[in-house]
């Protein structure tokens, strides 16, 4: 870091821009409006299908917007804009991976899953395999992926709060994370999937509109010439390399392999994220599920093009040094750009949208985790598929509270970690633990229970062990342990995908060929026919 950088950093560090009370008021208005909508939407929540799958009553367009709202998390908005502002082009590589990944969901998973399942990912995976062990495994991987993703969102909430409300100390941030967590619990308890979906739809509209306005604004300041914007970004950064790939991932051979690993995890993770998969059950038919993905791809793709402009806009108008030194670090790039453009009011609006983003994503994750526990573990395994009427939803609601508390504690612990990066880890775990089994059980006739268990547990364990022994956790000042004294980083890459994903595919194959038993061929016939034709698929509930 040069001397001038340090001086600029010192100037920028203390003040949080904007008016904290204005920010709180705008956010409060969002909470009040969405609460009313959630209350109104939740009056029809009676059965498990209402609570988990919103009565399967959403249209493709609504669900597509909700998927975009679920997917465009704080990692996308705050994380990617910050990554582009600071590491230039390499930040944009995240966007491309996040978007192309949707083709896997569209072509391989969405419709077949809607046709064969009911509420959760485990419904599909255990369809023609042994119910009990496969459900337990699928519920385990669901809970772990949701936990990682939750940590990322809660960490984002902490960073945002420190910037917006000028709360610098750890205790104050912990209080705000607790408030966010409590609000989320309230939404999910009252609204179920229907309430959660409406929050996500509203948030998606606000987020994409807000990012769109800022994008046009940034371009207008540069004469609607993207090349001029890039020129200004280079001038502020004093480094033409921010336009080229490699600033972050080109520094060494290990970094290049690490980037490949990340790319693989991003592109294969989406179609295996439990909270994304669960959204396909909220529409009445497979055709609507397809429409949802198409809507989602367009909204998400357009948004990611905005992030490219916003990232370089932040680099040009705010400057990487100021962003890096601001409370919240790279995650503060988008709010700081908003302040630069439209002063305290736009900052307040954009921050409220970012808060809403976190709230909506966290709500979606929580209901997914709760549904998986109540439906797969409690109702299917503990009660052997015969829970008392209403008991399953009751258990789901209790689980929501427990997960909310765990998320609050974890979020306080993860405060300060890079958000986009934590989400990338969740993608790696999902791609390793879930994707091989999803693909095999939909497309490989011979696939057996042993293969599923080996692949899921093997993928999960290898991904997590490699993360624990990676430079992310120990060995440097920037690691989770924040010290060089403890170093057990035996695995050189910070993303495990390049090892754990092929390993999980291999284990699924190996377990199957070593399995002497075969699965019920009638179940295989039924699953294949139903997955492609939609015969006997769950219908929308009538009210």
């Amino acid at each position, binding site marked *: 870091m040069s001397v001038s950088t340090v001086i600029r950093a010192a100037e920028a560090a203390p003040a949080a821009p904007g008016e904290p009370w204005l920010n709180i008021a705008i956010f409060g208005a969002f909470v009040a409006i969405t609460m009313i909508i959630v209350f109104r939407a939740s009056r029809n929540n009676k*059965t*498990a*299908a*209402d609570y988990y799958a919103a009565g399967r009553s959403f249209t493709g367009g609504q669900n597509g917007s909700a998927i975009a709202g679920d997917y465009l998390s704080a990692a996308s908005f705050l994380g990617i804009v910050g990554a582009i502002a600071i590491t230039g*082009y*390499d930040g*944009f*590589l995240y966007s*491309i991976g996040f*978007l*192309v990944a*949707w*083709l*896997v969901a*569209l*072509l*391989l998973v969405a419709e077949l899953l809607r046709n064969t*399942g009911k509420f959760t990912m485990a419904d599909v995976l255990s369809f023609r395999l042994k119910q009990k062990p496969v459900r337990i495994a699928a519920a385990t991987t669901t809970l772990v992926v949701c936990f990682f993703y939750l940590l990322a969102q809660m960490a984002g909430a902490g960073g945002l709060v420190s910037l917006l409300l000028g709360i610098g100390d750890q205790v104050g941030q912990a209080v705000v994370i607790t408030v966010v967590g409590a609000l989320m619990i309230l939404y999910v308890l009252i609204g179920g999937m229907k309430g959660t979906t409406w929050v996500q739809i509203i948030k998606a509209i606000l987020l994409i509109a807000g990012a769109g306005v800022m994008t046009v604004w940034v371009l207008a300041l540069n004469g609607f010439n*993207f*090349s*001029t914007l*890039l*020129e200004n970004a280079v001038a502020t950064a004093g480094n033409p390399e921010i*336009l*080229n*790939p*490699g600033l972050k*991932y*080109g520094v060494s051979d290990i970094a*290049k392999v690490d*980037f*490949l690993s990340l790319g693989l995890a991003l*592109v294969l993770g989406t179609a295996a994220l439990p909270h994304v998969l669960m959204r396909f059950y909220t529409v009445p038919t497979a055709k609507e599920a*397809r429409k949802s*993905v*198409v809507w989602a791809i*367009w909204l998400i*793709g357009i948004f*990611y*093009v905005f992030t*490219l402009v916003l990232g370089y806009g932040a680099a040009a108008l705010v400057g990487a040094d100021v962003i890096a030194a601001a409370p919240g670090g790279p995650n503060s790039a988008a709010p700081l750009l908003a302040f630069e453009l439209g002063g305290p009011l736009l900052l307040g609006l954009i921050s409220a949208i970012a808060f809403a983003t976190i709230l909506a994503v966290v709500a979606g994750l929580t209901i997914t985790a709760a549904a998986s526990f109540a*439906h797969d573990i409690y*109702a299917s395994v503990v009660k052997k*598929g*015969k*829970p008392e009427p209403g008991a*399953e939803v009751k258990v789901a609601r209790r689980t929501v509270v427990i997960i909310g508390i765990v998320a609050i504690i974890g979020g306080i612990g993860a405060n300060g970690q890079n958000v986009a990066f934590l989400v990338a880890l969740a993608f790696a775990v999902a791609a390793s633990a879930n994707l091989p089994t999803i693909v095999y059980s939909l497309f490989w006739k011979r696939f057996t229970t042993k293969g599923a268990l080996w692949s899921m547990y093997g993928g999960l364990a290898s991904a997590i062990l490699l993360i624990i022994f990676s430079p992310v956790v120990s060995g440097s000042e920037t690691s989770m342990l924040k010290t060089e004294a403890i170093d057990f980083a035996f695995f050189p890459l910070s993303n495990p995908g390049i090892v754990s994903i092929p390993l999980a595919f291999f284990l699924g194959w190996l377990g199957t060929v070593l399995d002497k038993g075969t699965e019920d061929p*009638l179940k295989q016939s*039924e699953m*294949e*026919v*139903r997955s*492609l*034709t*939609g*015969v*006997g698929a*769950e*219908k929308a509930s*009538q009210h």
Partner: protein
Amino acid sequence: MGNEALSAETETAPPVDYRAVQQSEEFQRLRSRHRRFVFPVLAACLAWYLAYVLLASYAHDFMSTPVWGNVNIAMLLGLAQVVTTFAVTTWYVSYANRRLDPLAEEIRDEIETAQFAPEEAAR
């Protein structure tokens, strides 16, 4: 309709001999139409994405070549990824509407009008 039931099946559905459906010529045609589209198209998209990632990692100078003002090849290839994603999405939807949905609907109708009921109680 109560949805508290847990098994993946819908209880009210008439018994269906899924084996016979699976082996029917129509279903085999649907299955192969589906697979012949999704597997090669997805493989091509993933290969194209992988090529982009490898270029970004290992072909730094090529990617940094300016094309129009400060816009370089890396930016254009990134945007090209977005464009191909949109294009493949549109292509698949039109393919599914024309080639998959009518056939799937036909088979579904046949099943629902009990043309595939088991001859003897198979289950």
